[in-house]
């Protein structure tokens, strides 16, 4: 093998590795002792086909909050595990291969909010081929207000069967919470909102005045 061919091979191998690595993005935002371990997690996630943006965000978050390097690594690793579980749930529910990164992220977020994998799997099975993020978010909202998990999933499933989709699931959860705040019991609030389906009122829209835009660095399509 000539030297020129060896250099070409090394370059060919290095380019995808550089693309998988988030080292450049992490530098300056994450404590240096954590960089290497987090970069390894990112490279592994990328090879497995998992979305890496949530992992990078978790590392940024730890750096911004001044968290100790080992705790940042642990949090990023835990997030990667949740993404794996989320993808497995979606595959069990019959999602296409490779699984949509946005869906994996949404399911992982629901898991991190405390929903059990069984209920997440049940809900994703009700909405095959559709975005499940808002539905999961709605169930998590209900559970966060101490509605029973089973009953919360039942309400959102009923909403789906009545034809509601997407962000309207959030309206359903918001309506139930509102009934709770008006003094109804949890069971009565769920029953009342179920009787309204699919005509649940949307929340009021804020006026677009005195607005500013949040600045965010958008990741490139190939960057993890």
């Amino acid at each position, binding site marked *: 093998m000539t030297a020129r061919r060896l250099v070409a091979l090394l370059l060919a191998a290095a380019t995808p590795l550089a693309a998988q690595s988030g080292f450049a993005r992490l530098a300056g935002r994450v404590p240096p002792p954590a960089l290497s371990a987090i970069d390894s997690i990112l490279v592994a996630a990328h090879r497995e086909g998992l979305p890496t943006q949530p992992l990078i*965000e978790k590392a*940024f*978050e730890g750096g911004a909050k001044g968290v100790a390097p080992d705790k940042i690594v642990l949090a990023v690793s835990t997030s990667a595990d949740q993404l794996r579980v989320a993808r497995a749930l979606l595959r069990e529910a019959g999602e296409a291969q490779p699984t949509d990164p946005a869906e994996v992220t949404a399911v992982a977020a629901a898991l991190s909010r405390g929903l059990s994998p069984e209920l997440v799997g049940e809900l994703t099975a009700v909405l095959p081929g559709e975005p499940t*993020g808002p539905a999961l*978010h709605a169930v998590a909202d209900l559970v966060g207000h101490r509605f029973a998990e089973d009953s919360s999933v039942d309400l959102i499933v009923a909403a789906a069967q009545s034809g509601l989709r997407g962000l309207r699931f*959030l309206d359903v959860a918001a309506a139930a*919470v509102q009934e709770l705040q008006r003094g109804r019991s949890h069971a009565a609030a769920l029953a009342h909102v179920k009787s309204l389906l699919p005509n649940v009122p949307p929340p009021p829209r*804020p006026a*677009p005045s005195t607005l500013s*835009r949040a600045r965010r660095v958008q990741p490139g399509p190939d960057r993890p």
Partner: protein
Amino acid sequence: MMHIDPQLHRVLDGELPSDDLTPLQREQSAALQRAARLLAEAPVGSVAARVMAEVRRPPLRLGQRVAQWLTERHAVTIAVRPIWSLALAAALAAIAVIPSRGPGPVLGEQEGIAQFVGRFPDARSVEVVGSFTDWRPGAVVLRDDDHDGIWRASVVLPVGEHEYMFVVDGERWVADPLAGRYVDDGFGRQNALLFVRPLAR
């Protein structure tokens, strides 16, 4: 207008002979007759001549007529009841006095508005840091213009789920007590959660 003696008037009209006038009246009569001759000799056309001159002038083109109409003065009369003129004046005053509130930035289909409100009476600065800024501080600053301790910001964000925390005085991380949705951040704290809806529904 100059006053003319009645007797002089009658002489000028030919009703009396000029012999009946005094020397002074005769001088006045002569002056008036000279003036009358001058007026008769002046090259001022008669009314009929001026009318005929207007008739003989070539007609104006449409553009010239419009230009003439626009540049000439016209008397315009508007009959308005006083109550309506008062209402119009009030409306104009209201437009001038009421500050106009701009519509803000134009939102895309995949953008919505998030409103952040927090009560921090003793804070010198409050900002929101979250996943929508890659957790980079300094992007979304809340304001307390009336110094009542309530800090506010309205921000355009991408549609979807976002995690965030307030940062008070640049160092104290605080979960939004009004968020209603929280998630463990993995570092021993809780992030607030918000789900931004598209405004253009």
